């Protein structure tokens, strides 16, 4: 159908919203509560536009087009309304911008600037509400919340967790877990998608910056840091670089300048994970083990299955997540090699993830010491670099330290949904046939779609695999397993939409276009590496020879594998 926006004729599909058409036409309409692909609520009203024949302004995010519709997206009336809406939001907002974690990166702040709010015409009542800082991963400050409901919709509609919802009504409305509980006592999986979708500073990660600075400044502590794959394609954004810029070498330099004693690469233990996981898969296939095997590197996903599908825990691979494997090796293999007392080693993981903070303090992940002592999100690392006065964009490149710094393309693609599966298939094929694959690119399981599947013929059998991201998408597969009808052998699961590149600890705000660019960067690194299969990682092979024996050996099980616990939903 034909509609007119700002005197320009354009085509629209029946059922589309005004906002969708305007976006396609390259017109910018500000939004706050709107999240692409999720149910529109029209609650914030910032996207209002003028439609001829309508009595009042309409929210463009929720209003469907009709034949002959005439829209004005930027008339004086619209601008005045938007400005008033911002002023009213600010009227009950704490306005502690200078002390806020989102200062300079806040959607409300930007809108106030764009619409020229220079004075506060309204003085509203403030709500006094308790901070929720008890969880190991996520902190909530409900007073800063503008009730857009994006966190709630992500939590319910994308993650099917439903840890939080809007309670009460009117002025008392608030986003909270049931009964005003803390996130710590409800089935929150700490994926942090609420944080990356929050327009303001109402949600943030539990900061580990101080304990890491303290460790660095401690005269007796040997501080070892490791960097996850997805961090290197996102950190640049915090310094104004294009999404998808690859900044691996700069990160290493920055970490050395911050004062870390040793800089390792989590990609190394991603390769190691593949050796362990592929071996575990083949063992299950050959010896009638529980199938399908589910991957275990995403701690948000692990907590999800523990809460919601505890009967399926035995389908999970027993492999620890890569940074936990690395931590265990740093405090055993590396400590032994360097003759350092492991009690003096402090392991820091730089992760795109908030759930890793919770994972690091799981009691089963560590023997005498926790495998990992602190977890910094990509955002926290950026803050530390800025704090230290390092001009990140001008840094020279440097290389990771040996022996836990070598990696292959298989390790780096862990950062993108489908990557663990692809890496495992590359090595499983080699292990089964003794030959390298002709074409190691598994395109069907790449991309940002929530569910990707493939049938992989290997040596007379057809492996049926799937890569799933966003937790809601896994329910179908888990119900299938429960019913005993799952045709799959191996399923990769990542809690966050798109995988770690769009994790809860990544630069803000999150959007699919940025995630897409980060993903392309991940596959670019893989493509350009000389070695692209985990079993080709010489340091990994050496580690087995010198220390672990062979994949799934007794020692490997002690250090690199773990178990899971059933958790209540309540």
């Amino acid at each position: 159908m034909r509609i007119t926006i700002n005197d320009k004729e354009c085509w629209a599909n029946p059922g589309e919203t005004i906002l969708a058409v305007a976006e396609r036409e390259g017109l910018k309409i500000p939004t706050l509560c709107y999240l692409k692909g999720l149910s529109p609520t029209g609650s914030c009203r910032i996207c209002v536009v003028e439609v001829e024949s309508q009595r009042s302004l309409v929210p463009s995010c929720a209003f469907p087009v009709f034949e002959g519709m005439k829209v004005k997206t930027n008339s004086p009336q619209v601008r005045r309304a938007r400005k008033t809406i911002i002023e009213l939001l600010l009227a009950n907002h704490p306005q502690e911008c200078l002390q806020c974690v989102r200062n300079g990166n806040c959607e409300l702040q930007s809108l106030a600037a764009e619409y020229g709010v220079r004075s506060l015409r309204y003085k509203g009542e403030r709500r006094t509400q308790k901070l929720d800082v008890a969880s190991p991963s996520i902190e909530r400050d409900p007073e800063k919340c503008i009730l857009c409901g994006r966190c709630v919709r992500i939590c319910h509609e994308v993650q099917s967790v439903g840890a939080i919802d809007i309670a009460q009504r009117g002025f008392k409305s608030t986003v909270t877990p049931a009964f005003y509980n803390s996130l710590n006592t409800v089935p929150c999986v700490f994926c942090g998608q609420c944080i990356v979708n929050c327009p303001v500073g109402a949600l943030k990660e539990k900061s580990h910056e101080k304990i890491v600075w303290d460790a660095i400044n401690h005269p007796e502590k040997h501080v070892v840091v490791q960097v996850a794959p997805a961090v290197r394609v996102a950190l640049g954004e915090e310094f104004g670089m294009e999404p998808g810029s690859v900044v691996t070498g700069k990160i290493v330099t920055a970490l050395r300048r911050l004062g870390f004693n040793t800089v390792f690469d989590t990609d190394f233990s991603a390769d190691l994970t593949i050796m362990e996981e592929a071996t575990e898969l083949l063992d299950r296939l050959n010896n009638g083990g529980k199938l399908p095997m589910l991957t275990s590197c995403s701690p948000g996903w692990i907590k999800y299955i523990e809460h919601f599908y505890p009967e399926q825990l035995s389908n999970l691979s027993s492999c620890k997540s890569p940074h936990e494997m690395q931590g265990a090796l740093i405090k055993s293999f590396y400590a032994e090699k360097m003759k350092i007392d492991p009690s003096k080693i402090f392991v820091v993981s730089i992760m795109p993830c908030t759930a890793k903070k919770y994972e690091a303090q799981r009691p089963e992940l560590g023997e005498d010491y926790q495998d990992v002592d602190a977890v910094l999100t990509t955002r926290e690392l950026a803050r530390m670099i800025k704090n230290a006065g390092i001009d990140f964009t001008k840094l020279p490149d440097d290389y990771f330290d040996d022996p836990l710094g070598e990696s292959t393309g298989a390790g780096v693609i862990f950062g993108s949904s489908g990557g663990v599966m692809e890496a495992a298939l590359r090595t499983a094929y080699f292990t089964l046939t003794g030959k390298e694959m002709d074409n190691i690119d598994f395109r069907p399981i790449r991309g940002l779609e929530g569910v990707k599947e493939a049938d992989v013929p290997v040596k007379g059998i057809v492996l049926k695999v799937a890569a799933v991201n966003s937790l809601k998408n896994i329910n179908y597969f888990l119900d299938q397993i429960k019913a005993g009808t799952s045709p799959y052998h191996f399923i990769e699961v990542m809690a966050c939409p798109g995988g770690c590149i769009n994790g809860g600890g990544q630069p803000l705000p999150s959007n699919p276009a940025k995630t897409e660019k980060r993903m392309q960067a991940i596959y670019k690194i893989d493509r350009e590496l000389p070695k692209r299969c985990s079993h080709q990682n010489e340091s990994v092979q050496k580690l087995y020879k010198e220390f672990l024996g062979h994949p799934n050996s007794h020692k490997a099980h002690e250090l690199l594998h773990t178990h899971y616990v059933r958790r209540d939903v309540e």
Partner: protein
Amino acid sequence: MSTASVYEKYPAQDPSVLIPMLQDIQEILGYLPEDEMHKVANFTRLPVSRIYGVATFYNQFRLQPLGQHVIRVCRGTACHVKGSLDILTTLENELKIKAGETTKDLLFTLETVACIGACSIAPVISIDNEYYGHLTVKKVQKILASFKNDQTEE
């Protein structure tokens, strides 16, 4: 009193039955206890945060048990003009609770209503469906005292 009949009456895993279920449970128990909300969550397959959101959104649902005596203070226009705010404040101070709450001893629940429909005797309150009109702060204190005395005599 058991709420088992409620769970037999409705189909499981159907979010659309949420509000009628909560109404039925409140009918039986007088309020919505936490554990019932968890049960409803399991039954409807909705997260308990959503049950809590709905239960706190609608004024008809109460999350605390009702006191033995329910005091409703009319806050309609006529009563307001005749000083019903003082009546309400007096009751809040005497009972040491806010409107919408129940005393610790479960004796009194204090509520406000928009209009009782007895403007001719404003300001007015009702206690257990008995109406008290032309009130003053002193009269309210007396009425309250008589209820408390009744209680101690029993």
